């Protein structure tokens, strides 16, 4: 979705002057654009009255904010201790092979973003993958194709 001054204004307006709302407004913007465009950060700094570097500080601190455009489907592969022990690395490799990108990158057609995280807090489901908010537990490399197909079907529907 292209970033427009009006679109941003709608998101930022209700937080105007509220310094403490920094994370909420960034979340709203992220929900809408799937990333935090630089012009959005500038607009937020101005509207909330916080220094731009503080906005950058928060934006770079949290893993859930991205400063580069993300794909329509976000695949998050957990490599925390439990997932690692139970073969998370092989699952990640399979994602990388199928999507043709390394972890942390987005496919050139803008469809997929692949991420690795250090723990999703659901170690009983290890190895765990989250695609577009859906949790897929006990993953194996073999299941990767089906998980990606399901995401594609959601998009079509």
């Amino acid at each position, binding site marked *: 979705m292209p970033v427009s001054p009006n679109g941003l204004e709608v998101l930022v307006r209700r937080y105007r002057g509220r310094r403490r709302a920094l994370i909420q407004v960034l979340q709203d913007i992220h929900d809408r654009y799937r990333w935090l465009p630089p012009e959005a950060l500038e607009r937020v700094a101005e509207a909330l009255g916080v220094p731009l*570097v503080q906005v950058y500080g928060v934006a770079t601190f949290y893993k859930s904010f991205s400063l580069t455009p993300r794909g329509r489907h976000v695949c998050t592969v957990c490599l925390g201790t439990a997932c690692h022990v139970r073969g998370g690395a092989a699952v990640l490799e399979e994602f990388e092979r199928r999507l043709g990108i390394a972890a942390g990158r987005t496919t050139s057609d803008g469809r997929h973003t692949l991420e690795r995280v250090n723990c999703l807090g659901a170690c009983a489901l290890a190895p765990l993958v989250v695609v577009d908010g859906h949790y897929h537990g006990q993953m194996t490399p073999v299941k990767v194709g089906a998980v990606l197909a399901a995401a594609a079907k959601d998009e079509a529907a």
Partner: protein
Amino acid sequence: MSGAARVGLTIDGRPVEAAAGASVLKAAEAAGIAIPHFCYHPGLEIEGNCRMCLVEIEGYPKLELSCSTVVREGMIVRTSTDRVRAARKDVLEFLLAEHPLDCPICDKAGECLLQDHYGLHGRYAGRMAEVRERREKKIPIGRGLILDRERCVLCTRCVRFLRQVTRTGELGVFERAVGSELGLAEGRPVDNDYSGNLVDICPVGAITSEDFRFRTRAWFLDRRPSVCPRCARGCAVVVESVTGYPLAAGERRVYRVTAGVNPAVNGHWICDLGREGRREIDEGRLGAVLRKGVREPGLAWPGAVAGIAAAVRSVPAAERPGGVAVVLNARLTSEELALARELFVAGLGLRNVFFAGLKPGRADGLLLTAERMPNGRGVLEAGLSPRPPALEALAAARVLIVFGPYLTEHFEAGALGRALAAVPAKFLVSAHAGPLDRLFDAVLPVTVPAEKAGTYTNIDGLRQGFSRAVEPAPGVVPEGAVLARLARSLGLDIGDADAR
């Protein structure tokens, strides 16, 4: 809020009183018990991120941060138990685990809190077998400041200073955990008139000044307090100079001017204009008596004063009030102004006593005042009236004595030159060489404020005495000595320069 309420507590077995609402750290400090810290700074809001100031408080299961814990009645605090000592050691070990230990080439060495605290509270043997994280070591962040990310301990003093004091917010901490580092928004360097304070408040060598880097070592510097002469605020400054060995040609004498602490005037900060005042102490100084702009080898200042006295005496006493004109300035100390009044107004009865000075600038709403002369109030207190110089009156004088190079601030060079050409005998008393030098019969080199003792009255009417912060440059004398000698030569008793 009951500001006067006092709270009694015990720190290290000693009964201590503190203001209600004060932190344990402040209460301890007031009682002479130092608690090590990095992120705490009395001029900034509490952050509590360095964990160095941990103390034991009875009734609390864990160690508490003394900087952010408020004193309570009956509190029992211990600052040097084994547990506290072990905690400090651990905190330091964490901080130093990622520190480059490049003290031999670090400009902060000798005045670094990491070094000080390691010496007092660390003293552990290093256990780091891992390779340290490499980070950028020489990032220009604006205003001649250099950021070294390896040395940074992320105390955020600089970040808080820029948000809370200057409200410009140029610096921030990006990323997190081991990736955390200090940074700027792209294309927005540090650019405010108080930037130099970042070097003062950085507890380590992470922010250094290009003007000071690699020039000398902190332990060679003699630090003496003075009052900043660059505006009417009268901030406390510390003049840091080298003494003790002869300077090589072109070597600096004063390496830097840093902020002094004066809660009544400037708190902990000074502006960059005041900091740059180090230049005018060393640079462009006059070092010998000049005659028509040329160095006169045989002539010392007493001889030059005798010349002034002779010129004044050549004017018959009855014609002196209109025939002798004097231009003073508000950089003179109150003591010197008192002498000048005794000599020129009371003694010689001169009508034409003027004041020249730097043009007013812009007040910045923090410390810097529009008025750029330090003792304007002192002029009034001395019973002198700060009349700006009138060109016709100067031109009509038979003898003209000018203190300071400020006439150029009032008149255009051509007109000033023509006016001065009409004056038969004219003398300049100035600390700095300038375009006026060749227009006067003789120029006497004098001290800058840092080289003398005296009193300035600041814009709020606060009288501040200061002592000599640096030995006078070779060949110069204080204006007070010139005035006293001139008075003696003219047979007037006005007291002397040292009479306060």
